[in-house]
């Protein structure tokens, strides 16, 4: 356990120095929020500034978990760092756990920043319980993408992991309704994405309606599927890292 925490601390220090990563996870959602939060009146029956806050918090969290892990894991596998770590007394699973903990630590920062921005810049007023539920849903939801990133990073070499990550990033942000809501057939597909589910749970919490059970089931199912994929990737690559 101590080893995992040491590795996590080192990982967090690395990411803090990585400007590109910070721009993606914290910078981009903040800038977008500052520009667009006043662009609409209401959407999904709630104040646009509140909706956009949730959308940007989700965006920062999922983009950070995906971009921060997939390509890095793939590269670290390629240079042999994962192999080197396996020669230390650190247990074999520690590397993946540390990656996910690191991702959660930095996602917590980006979610907090965006929610604070919503409160003080967007003028969003919610009860303390609502703030907490939104923060926790978006934050825990990001682990879905951390798991997906592990699956991609272990399975593909960097030159393939890069376009695959970009594609997943676009699919889940566009189809998830982060940029604009869909209607019709695409709207139905959109409803199945974890990004949409996390946003909708949050907007339901904001409008004080009860959250449909299937949204929660949906998020848990995505997590289970991607965690299984990640486990398969790690296992099948065990002799080639």
């Amino acid at each position, binding site marked *: 356990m101590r*080893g995992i925490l040491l*590795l996590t601390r*080192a990982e967090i220090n690395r990411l803090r120095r990585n400007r590109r990563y910070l721009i993606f996870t914290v910078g981009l959602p903040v800038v977008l929020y500052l520009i667009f939060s006043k662009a609409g009146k209401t959407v999904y029956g709630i104040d646009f500034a509140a909706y956009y806050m949730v959308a940007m918090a989700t965006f920062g969290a999922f983009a950070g978990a995906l971009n921060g892990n997939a390509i890095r894991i793939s590269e*670290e596998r390629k240079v*042999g760092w994962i192999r080197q770590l396996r020669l*230390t007394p650190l247990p074999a699973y520690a590397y993946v756990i540390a990656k996910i903990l690191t991702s959660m630590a930095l996602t917590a920062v980006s979610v907090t920043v965006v929610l604070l921005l919503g409160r003080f810049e967007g003028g969003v007023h919610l009860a303390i319980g609502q703030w907490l539920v939104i923060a926790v849903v978006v934050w825990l939801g990001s682990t879905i993408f951390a798991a997906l990133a592990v699956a991609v990073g272990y399975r593909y070499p960097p030159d393939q992991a890069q376009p695959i990550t970009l594609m997943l990033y676009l699919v889940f942000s566009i189809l998830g309704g982060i940029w604009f809501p869909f209607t019709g057939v695409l709207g139905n597909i959109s409803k199945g994405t974890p990004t949409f589910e996390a946003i909708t749970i949050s907007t339901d919490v904001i409008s004080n309606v009860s959250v449909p059970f299937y949204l929660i089931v949906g998020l848990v199912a995505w997590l289970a599927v991607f965690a299984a994929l990640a486990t398969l990737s790690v296992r099948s690559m065990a*002799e080639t890292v």
Partner: protein
Amino acid sequence: MSHSGTGPVVSFENVSKHYGSLKAVDGLSLELRRGETVALLGPNGAGKSTSLDMLLALRKPTAGRILMFGKDPYHAVKSGSVGAMLQSGGLMPEVTVRELVTLVAGLHPRPVPVDTTMRRAGIADIADQRVDRISGGQTQRVRFALAIAGECDLIVLDEPTAAMDVETRQRFWSSMREEVAEGKTLLFATHYLEEADQAADRILVINRGRLLADGSPEDIKKRAGAKRMSFRLPGADEATLLGLPGVVSLETRHDLVHIQTEDSDATLYAVLDAGYRPSEIEVGSLGLEQAFLAITAEDDRANGAEPAAAAH
């Protein structure tokens, strides 16, 4: 030393590793005893790296059993009894050398003070540089530092001096001798036969995944036919010369004859008895390199294959 038992430090019991039809390691059995410095020699593709990978729990044997300190390799590695440096190992990018050594030392149950490790590995002067911005030789030394960042009983090194210049290599071996003097066991794979000759007290020659020779450098040289002999002899008949006592192999270039022999005296007398009067006779010992090539080439011929690539 946590390992106080008298059993072998490492044992391979009939270990094989197959990739499809390729037998990378084929029924390898060996034991390493405490305090030994053992060199693993073999041409490219002989199974050296695969054997070390299995020993370090990076790969699982297809058949057979490996024990380290009486435990399975994974648990031996996780208990911190072994420090290892592999060619394929890499470094965590975006951190400084000191941060990385500190991290890895922290993962050990018996960490060595970071400054001691950095001094031993000769990287104190690059402590504050980022690991992704140092040269190949420096990277090699950092990887060595990671291998010795914790107190361990066995050190495993795969081609440790490959990217080092002569001076660094000498310093490396003098720090290695310090480690061995403390009672540690050292296993290293190398392409530098001279290095194996000087540093190791035991040499394992493997080829095609099998153990061909196991002994002191002197044993290995003896086993290959201990002497080489050369002379000039116009019109020499190869078949006759090959039939002389002691001759292991023979090579002629114009009128220059090179012979490898188990008994140089007997061979020389027989040459003279056969009525030949060669000139410029030279007799000398076989180097480890020639011994190694002779042993692996003989094995390749016995297997009806082209000799594998030479050691360099």
